């Protein structure tokens, strides 16, 4: 063998060696008609397909994804990537002379069996497709799922599950079936949102004056509160110890943190400055005389 190799390398037959090598490979059968050469060609096809898929994915993310909505870009990217891989796989099977028609018949029966066994997986897959079509919320939206007591930012809607980053920074994975069948409250779908607090003032204080000082303090110190619609005040209840006033203000959807968390502080500050009492729960006791 060594001599043979030497002859081809330095003799007149330079170039014959690789052909002979390939012929040898084509003669080395693994199973049935499957030879080492056909497997090598199949491997090259699959590897080329994988490389093309990755390159297309990278190019897509670089040049086209920035102009598309995040979730659309992600879904299109997956479609391109797996589409190229499936085409490569089909090319691979045809290069090996594998007839898939028999597999399809067997696959039909097999799919029924698998379908029963993996109902929840299929259900999640179908729900994922419907979520992508219906788009109850898009990537980056702040959402609330009251049924599951989850609030946070929607990171993505995947094939089987969706991920939400909660406000505490942790990421929660929700199976698509549960996500699809739950009530989803989008906190950023509207242009503006409303924040509200309740405050009680004493019975001896003037309601109009209390509302006036609160309104003025909000106007001066809360720049994210909208002038139109203007802050609303509702005398909600004549409570046991206080007259309860509800304060409602509108703010741009992205500026919740500049309204809701500081609204009560602003209201209290206004009432404190104006000398309006915020009463503690109290009880008047009448002592009967014999």
């Amino acid at each position, binding site marked *: 063998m060594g001599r043979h190799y030497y002859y081809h390398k330095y003799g007149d037959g330079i170039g014959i060696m690789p052909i002979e090598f390939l012929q040898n490979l084509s003669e080395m059968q693994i199973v049935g008609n499957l030879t080492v050469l056909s497997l090598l060609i199949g491997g090259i096809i699959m590897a080329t397909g994988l490389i093309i898929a990755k390159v297309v994915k990278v190019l897509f993310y670089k040049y086209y994804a920035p102009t598309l909505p995040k979730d659309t870009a992600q879904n299109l990217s997956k479609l391109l990537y797996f589409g190229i891989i499936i085409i490569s796989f089909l090319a691979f099977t045809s290069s090996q002379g594998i007839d898939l028609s028999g597999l399809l018949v067997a696959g039909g029966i097999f799919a029924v069996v698998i379908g029963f066994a993996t109902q929840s997986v299929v259900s999640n897959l179908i729900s994922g497709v419907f979520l992508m079509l219906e788009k109850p919320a898009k990537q980056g939206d702040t959402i609330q799922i009251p049924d599951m007591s989850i609030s946070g930012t929607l990171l993505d809607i995947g094939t089987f599950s969706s991920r939400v980053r909660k406000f505490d920074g942790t990421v929660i994975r929700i199976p698509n079936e549960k996500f699809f069948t739950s009530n989803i409250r989008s906190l950023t779908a509207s*242009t503006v949102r409303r924040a509200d607090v309740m405050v009680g003032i004493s019975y001896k204080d003037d309601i109009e004056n209390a509302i006036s000082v609160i309104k003025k303090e909000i*106007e001066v110190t809360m*720049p*994210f*509160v*909208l002038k139109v619609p203007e802050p609303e005040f509702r005398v909600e209840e004549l409570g046991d110890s206080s007259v309860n006033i509800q304060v409602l203000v509108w703010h741009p959807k992205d500026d919740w943190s500049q309204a809701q968390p500081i609204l009560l502080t602003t209201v209290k500050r206004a009432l404190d400055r104006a000398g309006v009492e915020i009463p503690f729960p109290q009880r008047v006791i009448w002592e009967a005389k014999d």
Partner: protein
Amino acid sequence: MSDAGNSFTKYGLHDVNDLLEISLPNTEIKIERIGENAFSYFRKDSEGKIVEKMVPVKSNQIQIEVAPIRPLNHPARRTGYVFLKFDKEIYLSENSAASIFVHCPIEIGIFLIHDSHHDSLDWITCNPLNSRFGLYGSPDTGTLCKYAEVSLATDYSDSIPFVEGVMKIVIENTLSSGQTVSKVIFPITDNSLYYEDSKAIIDGIKVTMKKRAVVSIADVKTAPVSTDWTKSPTWEDTTITTSMEMGLE
């Protein structure tokens, strides 16, 4: 640098040698040389907020341009629309037109001119209390706007220094009935601003009330001003987030 008539700095170009102090209503700005090719920027505004920046440049000479800009940045840039509510309603009879001047809020841009660059360095508002948001339409589909209650002005010279510029609004009623106009909502991003000394004017708008099919609409178009005042540079937000390993802002 300061005007002898009042203590405030005028709009325009200012050379920075070792120290430049810019005085605006309720606002104090200092640009100081801290090295051969480095300057420091300090600003304290009417709300007590302090901004400090380091400005390294190639050349050892810089200029600062103080100019009026569109009122879109305070308290945060959220929209390109402006909602002007007139303090007095305007009644227009059928097939008539009116031309009015109104005071429109402005902000002030601080631009850095160095090495043949013209950069947006900072912005301020001298009247933050009149810089609020308003909604036109419903909460789910409406348009978020910068909101201001505006009064009528006599002419272009009626500008309130550093606080309000003057804008001309032409309102035309082509409808077959009289109309009362109390507000106007329009994108201000196409309107340029012009300055002279401490006064500012803004490109006007033309509002045409007309019938489109069965709906009455108000069509708003920009009407550029013809003036020899200096045109303000366009403010560009340079605070972008760059993606890198540790982030950069």
